């Protein structure tokens, strides 16, 4: 908008460009001074808790600096928690950011797993190349579904994802040359990360990378565009946002993370079979993401990890309560516990505690950073909403 002369008016205010206007605007008021922060004692407590949490994640599962000895199997179980966290973040992009539902997400993960295994075993490539290929294949599938979602929305799209998931299971996963039949496809670990302990760190690294990408995506214009188009696509369009392109992009990102998670799963198990990648797994993924709290990264990670550990029995072992529930008359064995507790938590989250685990992580996170320890109230309901419908 350039300054221009206009003869017709006598007294005219000075025409400014917007940037000039910014230059002349006084600096914004600094935020009002916060009430005084925590006491030194408070800070000591925070640092201590922070250290304990860091130790629990970084050291305990791998016997580093640990008075407790943990076996290899346990490290593998915790790796699964980390991988589920990656998958949870992937699903969060679809359910939380875009506002659609994916009832076939296990297909992305499964295809990622088989792709990575295939690239390493049959094509003789390095794990990192394989993981990259798996991610890209995941992204491509998801982008395709994203394009479909532009045409078919809401509940109907959910049914399409459901069909996609189950059809993948019945057809693609049955192709023996790709999936190795009942014996499955071998998936050796990369050099230097063969031990369960080291593999755990590899998974943590990948999780950190995914969290970083997710954070940067949402903190920049892409993320803002997604949030806008989720809630109000007409306004987003008038602000110049290409709703269709961003939707497909979001799907691609989701598929990227899912494929990556699949690759990690494959090499954790050292062998991939098609069986686990069924519709029930899709529901597990949805449960853990919703319980984690949508659009809340830390919550999703916590929820997914919790669920994974519950599912493989590790959580109950850790808490030493496995036997308590398994005895009659309760007879709730470790296998059955997640089948009951999961849906209960899901229903509680949807109806009563919309923030899910995110409410907990936000509370703790804020406290750790020096804020008060006050329970963060979830201000909106669990919004899985596809307004494009």
């Amino acid at each position, binding site marked *: 908008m350039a300054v221009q002369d206009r003869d017709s008016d006598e007294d005219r205010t000075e025409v400014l460009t917007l940037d000039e206007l910014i230059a002349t605007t006084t600096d914004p008021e600094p935020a009002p001074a916060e009430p005084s922060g925590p006491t030194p004692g408070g800070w000591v407590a925070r640092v201590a808790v922070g250290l304990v949490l860091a130790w629990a994640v970084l050291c305990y599962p791998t016997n580093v600096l640990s008075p407790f000895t943990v076996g290899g199997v346990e490290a593998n179980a915790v790796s699964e928690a980390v991988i589920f966290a990656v998958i949870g973040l992937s699903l969060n992009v679809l359910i939380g950011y875009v506002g659609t539902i994916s009832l076939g997400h296990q297909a992305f993960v499964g295809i990622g797993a088989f792709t990575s295994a295939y690239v390493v075993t049959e094509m003789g490539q390095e794990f990192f190349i394989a993981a990259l290929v798996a991610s890209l294949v995941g992204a491509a599938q998801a982008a395709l579904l994203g394009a479909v979602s532009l045409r078919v929305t809401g509940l109907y799209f959910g049914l399409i994802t459901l069909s996609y998931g189950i059809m993948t299971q019945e057809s693609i996963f049955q192709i023996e040359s790709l999936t190795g039949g009942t014996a499955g496809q071998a998936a050796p670990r990369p050099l230097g990360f063969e031990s369960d302990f080291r593999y755990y760190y590899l998974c943590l690294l990948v999780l950190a990378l995914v969290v970083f990408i997710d954070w940067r995506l949402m903190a*920049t214009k892409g993320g*803002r565009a997604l949030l*806008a188009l989720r809630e*109000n696509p*007409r306004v987003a369009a*008038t*602000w*110049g946002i290409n709703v269709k392109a961003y939707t497909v992009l979001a799907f691609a990102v989701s598929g990227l993370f899912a494929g990556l998670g699949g690759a990690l799963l494959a090499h954790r198990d050292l062998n991939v079979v098609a069986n686990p990648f069924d519709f029930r797994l899709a529901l597990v993924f949805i449960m853990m993401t919703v319980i984690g709290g949508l659009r809340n990264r830390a919550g999703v990670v916590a929820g997914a990890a919790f669920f994974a550990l519950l599912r493989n029995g590790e959580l109950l072992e850790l808490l030493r309560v496995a036997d308590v529930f398994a005895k009659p008359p309760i007879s709730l064995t470790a296998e059955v516990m997640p089948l009951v507790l999961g849906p209960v938590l899901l229903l509680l989250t949807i109806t009563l505690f919309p923030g899910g685990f995110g409410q907990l992580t936000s509370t703790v996170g804020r406290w750790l950073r020096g804020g008060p320890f006050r329970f963060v109230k979830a201000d909106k309901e669990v919004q899985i909403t596809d307004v494009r419908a």
Partner: protein
Amino acid sequence: MSAPDLQPERTTLLETDGISIRFGGVQALNDVNLRVDEWEIVGIIGPNGAGKTTLFNCITGFYAPTAGRVRYRGQDVTDLPVHKRANLGMGRTFQNVGLVKGSTAGENLKTAQHLEVDYDPLAGIFGSPRTFDVERHTTDRARAILDLMGLAHLEHTRVQGLPYGVLKRLELAAVLATDPDILLLDEPGSGMGPEEAEELGDLLLQLREEFELTIVMIDHHVPLVTRISDYVYCLNFGEVLAEGLPDDVRRHPEVVRAYLGDEATDDSEEVA
């Protein structure tokens, strides 16, 4: 402030050429010809259901007309999608306020600058130093516009639950953030009393001056529209009933008849 003379050298910014649109069995618009010159304020009035918002939807790209073309700066934009028209300089507000209610005012303003933020999404993900600079600039700009509209204190406040009048001003701020050349305002004065409508009129005139805007506004406040418009169209049943200088249109017998019995908030309606 007196209306600028309509000079022959002034470019036509927006025109619609025979716009017609049909929904099922209803002819919502029929051969509507509209012309808006640069820096004009054009008012569009008419009873409810006359097709005013439908016309906006055709102009901005939400509807595809069954006949007719839309031209912007001489370029035929009839087949362009909404976001591309925004890119060309069309800004628009909505009857039910067009904002992202789940975000803060500041975030809304930053989102609205989408077209101005010139790093591509991938660079944004990997956080180059340039993106940080651009982000900071975007935030500063958001603050400045909020300040301009007297809403700076709401930068970190979630939009949901704010009073209606504030929302309308915020929506205006957001559309200004898109750096438009033409503003299509859909009932900016709705819900306002006469004093507020007068202030709105002053604000629009001021914005036109300061940002060199062209404004097309739909509203039911006939005094407001009459005062600030350079040219007025009256629509009824999807057709242009009358057009011309504000006072002429207001006194047009057809226009008066169209409004009789309507709930227009105008109480100083002139009878011929």
